[in-house]
């Protein structure tokens, strides 16, 4: 059937493909470490939306992250006071203060709103995406691996991302974020800073691809170890006041 040369070639291809996939996963894990370096955490975030160079609005969020892709977002700004969003894997719930009942929403509805809460609540790629390295490219002065990654779960905010990870250091530099129709929706740029002696992403700047004068800066104000008990991640618990503390 196959001669020895063909068999060796196929084996080499298989090994190469396996190591290639492993490289992407490793790179994503390394890049994640610059965004969230804790398993369970409270991340306080300030979102600033700019129209041109003018600050249009500011929003504050506290995000409580727990393993198994659990995130609880508490809206802190006066105009959004009382809103909460819960993400459990691919499932999402929203509570509005006017109604005070947990409402199941679709991943698509999660993308709508002032500042997409999906952008605030999700801080890792490695568990949700897989793909391939499609080349190397310079972003500014930084030589990057260009990764084309695809969501492995239906609940991801962006089903496809083209991610640029620094070749030297594996920190995230830039990302092109695509929505379900494979349209480029936003561009993300990551700014690193020194936080408690560690290099971490301190700001993610999102530029809307359709309205280029619109810019959203997501500032990570603090990341601290915090483990909420499992009840907090039950959708029925969302209407309780303990979450507001």
């Amino acid at each position, binding site marked *: 059937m196959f001669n020895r040369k063909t068999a060796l070639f196929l084996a080499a291809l298989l090994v190469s493909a396996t190591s290639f996939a492993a490289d992407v996963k490793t790179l994503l894990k390394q890049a994640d470490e610059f965004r969230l370096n804790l398993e369970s955490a409270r991340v306080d975030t300030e979102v600033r*939306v700019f129209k041109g160079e003018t600050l*249009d*609005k*500011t929003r504050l969020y506290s995000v409580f992250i727990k393993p198994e892709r659990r995130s609880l977002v508490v809206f*802190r*700004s*006066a*105009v959004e*006071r*009382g809103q909460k969003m819960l993400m*459990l894997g*691919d*499932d*999402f719930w929203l509570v509005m*203060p*006017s*109604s*005070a*009942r*947990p*409402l*199941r*929403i*679709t*991943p*698509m*509805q999660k*993308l*709508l*709103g*002032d*500042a*997409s809460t999906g952008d605030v609540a999700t801080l890792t790629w490695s568990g949700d995406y897989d793909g391939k390295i499609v080349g190397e490219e310079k972003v500014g002065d930084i030589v990057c691996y260009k990764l084309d990654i695809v969501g492995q779960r*239906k*609940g991801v905010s962006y089903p496809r991302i083209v991610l640029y990870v620094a070749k030297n250091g594996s920190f995230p530099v830039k990302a092109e974020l695509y*929505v*379900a*129709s494979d*349209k480029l*929706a936003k561009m993300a740029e990551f700014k690193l800073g020194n936080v408690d002696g560690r290099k971490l992403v301190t700001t993610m700047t999102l530029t*809307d691809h*359709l*309205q280029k004068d*619109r810019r*959203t800066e997501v500032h990570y104000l603090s990341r601290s170890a915090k483990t909420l*008990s*499992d*009840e907090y991640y*039950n*959708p*029925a*618990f969302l209407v*309780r*006041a*303990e979450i*507001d*503390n």
Partner: protein
Amino acid sequence: MKPLCILALGGLLTLPAQAENGVDLTMTSRLIGEFHQIRPDSPFAAGLARTGFGRDNGRFEEEVRGKLGSVSVLLTGSFSGQEGQNPKTRLVANEAFIDFGSGADRFTIGKKILSGDVGYAFRPIDVVQREARMQLIPKALEGIPNLMWEHYSGQQAWSLIIANPDRNRGPEPNKDGSLTLRYFNRIGVTDLHGVARYSSRYRLEAGAAFSSVPESSLEIHGSFLVQQRGERTVPIRLPANANPILLLARSADDPNIMISESLKNPAKALLGATWTTDNGWSVLAETWWDGTAPKPADWQNLVRQTQIRNAMLGMPGIPAEGVNGALALSTRMFQNPSSTRRGNLLRVSWTDPAGSGWSTALDVLQRPQGGGWIATLSAAWVADKLRIEGGYRRYGGSANSVYRLLPEHQVIFAGISLAF
């Protein structure tokens, strides 16, 4: 002076958002206006001066939301006015409660909003809060005084609620004393809700609901309730050869014009779906059945009685007061939570996915079997602390349909709110 009191409520409570002393409050000032146009050919025209139909109204509200130590509060002070009436000032504690407990068992004491169910236009199992739906710019809900025990286990939860423990029966069903058991379970992409409530008015009510997201753009939901007893407001039933004088009101609140009819084992059901696209469009469709709503025969009875009353206007020996009063009282038929038993809603909305703060929606509520329709076009813009919203609602349908009988023809509404 009274409006100043409302402003003072806001002023006094304008505290830093994260104060050191356990006070964490935010404030919202809201100004709302509604401009109503009466239907010029309304068969109830002679009685409308005694009702709120067709009157422009406005309100200024100061809302304070947050925590005072361990007490969660929602306080509203309002200064409201209606065309032809004196302005009113009102201070309400919409919510004032303490949530406490640890681990799987949690407790609540106080006045808290206890909404439930999965639907948008109709909510069969919202048996505790009984929130009115499809309002223009609704006031903040007023919570229910309650004692509640909640138990959480994995993705399940149940709660036992003693509502309005100080009374047996109140002026409204949500002010009745009641005992309610609520259940929640999440099974994969589906939420299941169950409820059983006992009150002296409705006796046992039991129902279930689901909400499911089978794929990233689609949500489907349904809800069902059976009551041991129901009630609805309908015109008094008189034999065809009864003396028309019996259709006149003898007092401003004559109980013999409209009656509360008791129903045995009525049911309510809803089915709906929402489809959302990544460019911000969303389509919601719902259809429902409310066995507690008036039947077409009840509306026909109202039409017939209204014709007789109008025919008596100006007749010698017939007091105009009695006719006008009866016409005014008979508009209470429109206060039933559902005007007809079947309803369909189509809502098409758009939210700017780029985050400009703009959103808009068109709602069309249609009532089959001669109920007519309500169309509402609305838009809102949210800035940093500011929210501006407004819209237009129009009622229509074939002659003698419910929404053609409604004394109002159209409403323009607008609101502006500022959060601190």
